[in-house]
C-alpha cells in the first residue's frame, strides 16, 4: 500500500513536467498541423543550456528559465522560418515529420559537438531534497516542477484565451481562410506559435536536467513518450495533453512500483491503444477544427 501511494505521488508530480513538454507539441500541431519530432531534442537543448548556465555562472536552473525560454523561443521561430515555412501547405503535414526529425538530428549533432556525449546532470544543493508528509516523500524538485508546470500552463491558457494574439491563434485554428480575410497574418502566427511551443520545452528542460541524467541522445526516449501523451490526449488539445500526461505518468509509476518496471512502459501503450480503439482522435481530440 505504501509503495502504491508513493507511486501515485511520484506519478502526479512527474506528470506536470511531461504536461509542459507535451503542451508545446500539441500547441504546434493545433496551429500548424505539424507533428514536431524535434520537441524532445529541444527539451534536451534547454537542459544543456540550464546545465551550462549553472556550471559556468552558478545560475539556478529555475532562475535560468527566463533565459532558456527566450533562447528556445528564438530557436523555435528560426526552425519555423528556415525549415517549415518553405514546405508547401498541402504537403506540410507529411513532410514536417521528416523535416522535424532532421531538425532533431541536427540539434543532437550540435549538442554532441558542443557538450560531447558524456552524461550530464544538474546537481544543485536542493536536487535531492524532499519533504516527509505522513510518511511519504515529496521530492522538492518535482513539487516545484509541478507548480511551475501549472503556472506555465495557466499562462499558456491566458495567452490563448485572453489576448489578441490568442484570439488570432484560435481564429487561425478554427477557420484559417476567414482569419486571413479578417487580417490575421497566418505566417506570423505560425512562427510565433512554433516559438511558444519550443519555449515550453525550455522550462521543462531545466526541470528534466534536475531530475534525470541526460546526454544528447536522451531525446529519443523522450519523444516517444511525448507522442504517446499527445495522441492519448488528442492532437491539438492542451487540456488533453495535461490529462494524457497524468494518465501515462501515474500509470507508469504505479505499475513500476507495484507490479514490475518491465511492464511500466508497456502499460501506457496498452492504455493508449485502448483509448484509440474507442476514440481514434484521443480523449479530447476534436472531430473538426477548433480546439486547442
Amino acid at each position, binding site marked *: 500500500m505504501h509503495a502504491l501511494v508513493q507511486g501515485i505521488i511520484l506519478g502526479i508530480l512527474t506528470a506536470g513536467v511531461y504536461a509542459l513538454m507535451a503542451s508545446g507539441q500539441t500547441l504546434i500541431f493545433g496551429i500548424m498541423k505539424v507533428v514536431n519530432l524535434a520537441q524532445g531534442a529541444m527539451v534536451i537543448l534547454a537542459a544543456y543550456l540550464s546545465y551550462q548556465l549553472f556550471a559556468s555562472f552558478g545560475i539556478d536552473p529555475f532562475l535560468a528559465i527566463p533565459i532558456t525560454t527566450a533562447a528556445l523561443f528564438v530557436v523555435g521561430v528560426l526552425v519555423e522560418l528556415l525549415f517549415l515555412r518553405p514546405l508547401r501547405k498541402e504537403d506540410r503535414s507529411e513532410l514536417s515529420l521528416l523535416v522535424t526529425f532532421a531538425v532533431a538530428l541536427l540539434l543532437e549533432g550540435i549538442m*554532441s559537438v558542443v557538450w560531447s556525449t558524456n552524461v550530464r*546532470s544538474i546537481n544543485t544543493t536542493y536536487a*535531492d531534497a*524532499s519533504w516527509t508528509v505522513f510518511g511519504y*516523500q515529496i521530492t522538492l524538485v518535482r513539487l516545484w516542477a509541478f507548480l511551475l508546470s501549472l503556472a506555465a500552463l495557466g499562462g499558456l491558457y491566458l495567452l490563448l484565451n485572453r489576448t489578441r494574439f490568442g484570439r488570432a491563434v484560435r481564429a487561425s485554428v478554427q477557420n484559417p481562410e476567414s482569419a486571413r480575410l479578417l487580417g490575421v497574418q497566418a505566417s506570423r502566427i505560425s512562427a510565433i506559435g512554433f516559438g511558444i511551443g519550443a519555449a515550453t520545452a525550455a522550462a521543462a528542460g531545466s526541470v528534466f536536467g534536475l531530475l534525470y541524467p541526460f546526454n544528447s541522445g536522451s531525446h529519443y526516449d523522450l519523444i516517444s513518450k511525448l507522442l504517446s501523451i499527445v495522441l492519448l490526449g488528442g492532437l491539438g488539445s492542451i487540456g488533453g495533453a495535461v490529462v494524457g500526461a497524468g494518465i501515462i505518468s501515474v500509470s507508469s509509476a504505479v505499475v513500476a512500483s507495484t507490479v514490475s518496471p*518491465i511492464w*511500466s*512502459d508497456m502499460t501506457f501503450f496498452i492504455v493508449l491503444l485502448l483509448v484509440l480503439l474507442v476514440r481514434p482522435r484521443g480523449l479530447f481530440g476534436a472531430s473538426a477544427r477548433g480546439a486547442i
Partner: protein
Amino acid sequence: MLHHNRLRRGLPVACATAVALVLAAGCASRASTAPAGGNKNASTSKTLVIGASVSLTGDFSDSGKAVQRGYQLWADTVNAKGGILGRKVKMDIVNDASSPNQVVTNYQNLINKDHVDLTFGPFSTLLTIPAAQVAKRYGYAFLAPAGGGPKVFEQNLNNFFFVQPAPTTQAGDVFAAYILSLPAAQRPKTAAYAELDDPFSAPIAENIRQKFEAAGIKTVYKQVYPSETADLSPVMGAIAAKHPDVIVGGTQNQDAYAQVKSLVQLKYNPKFMFLSNGANSPLEFPDKVGAANTAGIFSASDWFPGSTAAGSAAFTTAYINKYGGTAQKVDDSSAEAFAAGQLVEAVASQTHKVDNATIISTLHSGSWPTLLGNLSWSANGAPNGEFNLVQWESGKLVPVFPTKIAQAAPVAPKPNWGG
C-alpha cells in the same frame, strides 16, 4: 518558374536534412587516431598496427573513452621504450557509437580494409559478442578489456581473452564473500535486488542473490528494469517500502546514479549497498550523485590506485602525466585496456613473435602478470581469478576486501546520505 520556386523553397529543407544526415553519420564514423583511409599497408609496414572499435559516442561513451585512453597510453608507453620487437605501435581506433551493427562493420574494415596486425576489443558485452566472432572468422586474437558477460564465453571462441580477473557475472561474488564473512549478528537479514536488463548487469546481482538466499538472507524485493528506464524512483520507492538491510544493484552507469539519487530523495538509507557498475567510476560517480552521497557504497573493481601489481605504478604515473588528474580519478576501464597491451608485450617478450596465432596459443597456457594481477584463462577465454571489493570512504574509492589487498577496513553499516 514554378519549378524554380519550388526548388528554391525546398533548398533550405534539403540542406538541413543533408546537414543532419552528415552529422548523424559522423557519430558513427572514424574517430581520432587513424589517418583518412586507414593504414592500408599495415601488414607490410614495420609499424605494428592494432585496431580497436570503441564507443566514443552513445550509451557506452563514458567507459568507451576511458578504454581509448588506456589503449593510447599503452601505445605511447611501449613506443617510448622502443616499441615491440623493434616495431613502433600504432592504435587504429574507430568509433562504433555503442552500436552492435557498427562494431561489426568496424572490425571487418579494420581487418579487411586497413589490414591491422592485431585487434583489441570494444566496450560492453553487447558489442564484444559480435566483434569477437568477426575476429575469430579471420584468425585474429581478440584481447577484450571489457564485455565479459556469460554469452561471450558461451561462444567458446579460442581466440578470445577477457582481460579482467574474472568473468563479469562474478564481479559481485566478492561482495557476497565479504557479507558472509561477517559475524551472524552483523549480517543483513533482508535484501532487495534492482537489476538492469542487461547481460552484464542482472547476472551479477543474481549470483549474489543465490549466495545470499543460500545463506538465509531473505529476498524482500527483486525486479528487473529495462535499459530505457530514466526514472527509477518508483522502483526504489517500492524497495524503500520493504526496508531491506542490503540493496544490491545490478547496474551500469546512468541507472546506478538514478538508484542513488532516488534513495536520497526517498530518505531511505540501507545498512549495505552494492552497485555492480557506475559506483566504481572515481570520476563520474561523485559528480553525478554528489560526493557526500557516495559514503559507504560498495562496488567491484579489478584495479585500484596503490596496487602493487605488475606495471601498476608506472601506469598510474604515465596516466597522470598524459591526462592529468590524480590516481583516484583513473577509470578502471583505462587500466583494463592498458593491461591488454601488457599481454601483447609479454607474449612478444617470451616468444619473440607478435602474430595472432602465437598470441592465441601462448596465452592459453600459464599465468600472465598485468597491472590487474596475474591473469590466466579457460579455453573459452574466461579468466580464472577474482575481483576486489571497493568502497567509497572519505570521498575516495578504496579496496577493502579480500584482506590481502585491502587498504582500509570496510565501513558498515553504511553512513547516512550526505556523509
